[in-house]
């Protein structure tokens, strides 16, 4: 077990090293950092001074080592545009994104898996057919269109819920939560549904497909031949075997939620890291882009690590070896 985790950990470190190298190279290849710091009309002397200050004349490996050292301490420098430390900016906006992703993940997992099992067991019921057809529409709806439609219906037309922004926050240290007030929930519900819908349909379809696949196996046929009840076959035999591949994809999907939070946050003007990232891209604000890249990769790597460990727990073939 320890060996297994260590191995995965080593792989994760490798991935992070590569991602950090990519984000480091952003500084060097995208735009001129000096221009970004002082603007076009600085004198030559000013420029040279800043170059030295930033250590831009050092060998590239030294610069990378420094970048890594700083990054490990959470220091990604100053935002070109807002002129504030990037780590501060990210920490400020992190709770908004994480809460949004959390609520969406719960919706996507609970509804997606439940409907997936239902359609997998009742293959030919008309309710299953309807759910499946609707889910295909769901896969075809771009996130931003869902967002616009929800805003139009619930905020503009019915005026039940706010159309944008986050409200009703309460502070716990640096963490601002909106999950403890009714206002906060009213604000989060539309963006959370928007964000979860696409992943929900993916999970639903995946669980169903895996369920059907497992139903074709010999051991299900043998379980039938032993006269076991449908219930035992569906839940004890089929479902557990379905879970093994589903866990991986669900891990990826939660990563997908983080990615699509960029779009949802833009549509709803949700003050999270995604909105900050997209604004940074607009202005080629490299420190924020680089930090966000590292941050997302880190989240992903952590999720994958958890997934691998879950795999290990669920599947005795991996746990006990052959």
């Amino acid at each position, binding site marked *: 077990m320890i060996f297994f985790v260590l191995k995965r950990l080593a792989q994760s470190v490798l991935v992070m090293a590569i991602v950090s190298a990519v984000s480091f190279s952003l500084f060097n290849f995208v735009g001129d950092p000096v221009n970004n710091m002082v603007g076009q009309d600085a004198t030559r002397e000013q420029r040279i001074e800043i170059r030295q200050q930033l250590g831009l004349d050092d060998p590239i490996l030294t610069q990378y080592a420094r970048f890594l050292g700083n990054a490990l301490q959470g220091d990604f420098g100053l935002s070109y545009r807002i002129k504030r430390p990037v780590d501060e900016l990210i920490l400020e906006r992190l709770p908004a994104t994480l809460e949004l992703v959390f609520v969406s993940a719960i919706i996507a997992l609970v509804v997606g898996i439940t409907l997936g099992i239902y359609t997998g067991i009742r293959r030919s019921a008309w309710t299953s057919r309807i759910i499946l057809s609707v889910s295909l529409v769901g896969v075809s709806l771009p996130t931003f269109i869902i967002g616009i439609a929800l805003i139009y219906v619930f905020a503009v037309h019915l005026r039940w819920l706010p159309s944008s922004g986050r409200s009703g926050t309460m502070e716990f240290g640096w963490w601002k939560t909106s999950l403890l007030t009714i206002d906060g929930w009213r604000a989060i519900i539309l963006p959370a549904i928007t964000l979860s819908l696409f992943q929900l349909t993916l999970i639903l379809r995946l669980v169903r497909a895996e369920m059907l696949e497992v139903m074709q196996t010999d*051991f299900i046929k043998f379980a039938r*031949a*032993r006269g076991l009840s449908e219930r035992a076959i569906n839940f004890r035999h089929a479902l557990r075997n379905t879970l093994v591949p589903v866990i991986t994809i669900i891990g990826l999907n939660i990563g997908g939620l983080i990615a699509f939070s960029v779009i949802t946050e833009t549509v709803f003007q949700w003050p999270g890291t995604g909105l900050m990232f997209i604004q940074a891209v607009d202005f080629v604000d490299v420190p924020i882009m680089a930090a966000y890249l590292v941050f997302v990769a880190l989240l992903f790597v952590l999720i994958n690590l958890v997934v691998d460990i879950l795999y290990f727990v669920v599947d005795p073939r991996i746990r006990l070896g052959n």
Partner: protein
Amino acid sequence: MTELLKTNDLDVEFPTRRGTVRAARSVSLAVGPGEVVGLVGESGAGKSTIGNAIIDLLEAPGRVSAGSILFEGEELCGRSESEMRSIRGDRIGMIFQDPQTSLNPLMTIGAQLIETIEKTCDLRGSSAKTRAVELLEQVGITEALPRLAAYPHQFSGGMRQRVVIALALAGDPDLIIADEPTTALDVSIQAQILDLLKRLCRERDLGVIIVTHDIGVVASIADRVVVMYRGEVVETGDVAQVLGAPRHEYTKSLIAAVPRADGKLDRFSSVDYIEGNVEPFQRIDIQTHWLGQAQHERTSGNAIEVEKLELSFVLQKAIIKRNRKLVRAVADVSFEVKEGETFGLVGESGSGKSTVARLIAGLHRPDAGVIRVNGQDVSSSPRSGAARDARRAVQMIFQDPYSSLNARMRVIDIVAEPIRFYRTASNEAETRKIVGELLDHVGLGAQASLRYPHEFSGGQRQRISIARALASRPRILICDEPTSALDVSVQATILNLLKDLQQELGLTMLFISHDLPVVRQMCDRIAVMRHGSLCEVADAETLFSDPQHEYSRHLLDLMPRMDLLGKAEV
């Protein structure tokens, strides 16, 4: 004798879009308590369909369209799903072919047993557990209690099939249907499982229906035999009568095609009852034909020489060499094959016999040792021109006729590939002519060349494979279990074809098989392999009459008894 199960004029249909397939037609059979009935037939005979129909587990859209199934006097046809569920497991048990896939990989053996016991026996908790231990012991699994906590992947194939049998017995059924229960197992395990089934049948007064394609299995276990052909029962009777003095033409042909272990025949008697099985050969004159024109220099007399061959596979990777887990697939193997002879390599699965073949064919590189083909060393610098030229003389016929042909290529392109690549024909027209003649020669006919592999049966595909091998104008043909995926009747015709080709072309043949009777019919000399090394090399007749090595004797003992079949006509 009172009958346990009786089917009367049972019809099973599979409606498809091309019309209704009648998989079984008015099948009547009966099983009594304490009796083993062998249900034999070749693929497509409908034998498994009958087994599935009895416990109402036909695959969709199959259904019983007529007839009745009487079990202990009750009609089973038309029962509701919940009524059938109380019969399955409780009163009729079922065993499937592949123990690898029959058990849920994520549940312990104990959990699967206890779940079944709780459903069928009204036992709970610790008494269910006690019963599970008893069952495992009854099927010959020792130290049963700790093994309840083990997962299926921790058991060997034979052990898993024992667990499957224990599960089938859990509800103390009166009838067991075993669908090819030993086909996926090695010979030695096969014998143990058959003994177990037979013993359980006698001890518990169980009725057993054993569905199989293997006459050997029937001969060693069945009391009575039901022979099926194309969905119909053609003959039913006592095992000694059906195997020893068959009455129906099909049964006669089928039994004649079974390879004999008790003497060498010149040719196999092919099953002429099956229409279209015997195709006229358009023979070509080897002396003048393209096929006979390969430049071959006679060498020292040994076509293949293998010295101290070693090969290990990495089971578990590790950066440090010491930590790698290796399995020695081939260990210190040396032998030589004389020009023009057929050399047999026999052994159970995992013995390394196929690996040796693949080493000689150049599909693997040995860790150590020398391979010489027609005197040329092909192992030390395999990419050199001389080694490549020598290798061109070696071609191979594979086991699985379904994966050995590229499904996206027409037969002509498959067979012509070596001719076109090496430009051994002067132009495209000649290539096409040669391919047509090769197809004729292997008994397929030139008109096959424009079709795709999926339009052919297993035996026909094997003929295409042979034509492809011939297109390289080989001197040495490696046959890796060439007929073990085929029906007995088809096997006979393919083996005859290989024998003919060898004589005409003076081919050297390396014949790999687990099937001793087949090897006896085909080979001049035989090597016995076990765990990667050679046990014994001997002339074929000597090996069968006077085996020297202990393991050879063990293997020969395991051969299914065919004495019921009457004396072979030598």
